């Protein structure tokens, strides 16, 4: 079997398929389960500085081609989460702590206090006031938040970018200037659904984020654009549900790939995807390295 191990944004991964932030990432046990199911690494639920209950329900709506969610960043605060991270780390894969805040010092405070294998800065959640993409849409804030976290932590820092922007490359370059070890693209697209019987917006928060198959072509484009312009690795996420999708993302330039919504089908997706990639590489006599960014080399 060809090797799937990869060096991605400062982490050594036994395979490039990771659990995405906010997906079954609320407890050490569920993160560990993803690791045991074959994830090459796991990202926690996004952690803030104070406990948050999140938005009222419905927090998800299944739409034709994906999922809308407006969880609203529920989390017990980073102060109450080290124990979960420790449990997950005991399961043998890198644990990336996703963190959020509304200003640089809030991020760096969290990063200073948590022990994890890497941090992923959530500058991209589209449905939580004062957080996520409300900062992450501004390159200067992306740069300063990244810089602040880098200065207060000695593990790799990834920056998760929003696709709700005219130019994701600007945001990626800002993360790079801030010293990021990698960027993660994409978070969900801001979206909504309305109940046609009554006119009520379905999500408790009205607005939410669209994920799943619907957004894959947008995610692939973002990864391609970022990979062609950035020097730091790009971690691809958005609509990956099968090994073919992961191959497409890697060809677009992704060093690693995160899987979110597809976990609805169960933890088996990790093995499905990694096995599929391994078989593909074998059939094509290619290495993961050769696959990465192939579309960029073809496309120009």
């Amino acid at each position: 079997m060809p090797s799937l191990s990869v060096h991605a944004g400062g982490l050594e991964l036994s395979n490039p398929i990771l659990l995405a932030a906010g997906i079954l990432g609320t407890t050490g046990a569920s993160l560990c389960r993803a690791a045991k199911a074959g994830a090459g690494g796991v990202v926690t639920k996004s952690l803030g500085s104070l406990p948050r209950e999140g938005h009222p329900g419905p927090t998800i709506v299944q739409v034709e081609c994906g999922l809308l969610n407006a969880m609203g960043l529920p989390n017990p605060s980073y102060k109450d989460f080290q124990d979960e991270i420790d449990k997950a780390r005991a399961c043998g894969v890198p644990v990336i702590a996703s963190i959020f805040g509304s200003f640089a010092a809030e991020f760096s405070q969290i990063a200073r206090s948590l022990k994890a294998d890497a941090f992923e800065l959530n500058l991209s959640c589209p449905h939580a006031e004062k957080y996520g993409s409300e900062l992450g849409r501004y390159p200067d804030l992306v740069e300063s938040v990244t810089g602040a976290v880098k200065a207060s932590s000695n593990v790799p820092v990834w920056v998760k970018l929003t696709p709700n922007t005219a130019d994701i490359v600007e945001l990626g370059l800002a993360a790079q200037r801030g010293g990021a070890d990698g960027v993660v693209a994409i978070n969900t697209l801001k979206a909504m659904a309305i109940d046609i019987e009554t006119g009520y917006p379905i999500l408790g928060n009205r607005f939410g984020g669209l994920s799943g198959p619907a957004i894959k072509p947008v995610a692939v484009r973002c990864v391609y654009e970022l990979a062609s312009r950035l020097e730091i690795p790009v971690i691809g996420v958005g609509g990956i549900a099968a090994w073919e999708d992961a191959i497409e993302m890697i060809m677009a330039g992704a060093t690693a790939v995160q899987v979110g919504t597809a976990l609805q089908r169960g933890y088996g997706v990790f093995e499905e995807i990694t096995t599929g990639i391994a078989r593909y590489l074998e059939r094509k006599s290619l290495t993961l390295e050769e696959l990465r960014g192939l579309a960029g080399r073809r496309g120009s």
Partner: protein
Amino acid sequence: MKPINCVIEGVRSEAPLIRTFRLEKNLDPAPGQYVMIWIRGVDEVPMSFSGPDTITVQSVGEATSALFGLGAGSTVGLRGPLGNGFVLQGKRILLIGGGVGTAPLAFLGEQAKEAGCEVASLLGFRSKDDLIFQDRFESLGETIITTDDGSLGIHGRAAAGLKELNLYDWDQIYLCGPEMMMWDIISRTREHAQKTQACINRYFKCAAGICGSCCLDPDGIRVCVEGPVIMADRLLESEFGRYRRGPTGGKGPCRG
């Protein structure tokens, strides 16, 4: 799937704070399965089926009291049936329920009886006034009732009724009620844990197996899709009865 629209066809008061809502739609649920009820403009919360087209709700907070504000002809959004449901095993089954947790058991008992099973019930309530579904259970078979205040039946918690029963007589035991009551039962009946199916509650946010809110330590069982019915032997080795997570994901006590 988006929530489907559903008219409430009737509302029936079962006890001061407990009502049964009859839904226009029969979603063909298995007993033990639940539905996410969207009270529009308020919240979406999980409710077990208490019959093929009913849910029985205790008013405990914002969503449930908003639901109590809805009468016949009102509509709610529905997502379901969800979860695994009870599995009918054997010919002689014992139902052990507490409070509004008796609701899915009444539904199960009726299906079991129809399938030819012998059914007995042990039901615990706080007091005579909180009693629900007495008729439904009594028409299924032997029914032992306990009340915390002794106002009816055996005085004490549900577990106090265990001494009336020889658990070895029963092929399968079905359990639903407040967490501490269920914990009380399963920790006293460890030798029967492998034949005890418990329908449990956790804080459900997505009810789609994706958000992690309902995951049970230490194995990370996603109660919303792999449950809510879980074998008691797995529960004995879990957080169940010790702590549960609230809306933030942080650990809290197992009230009730």
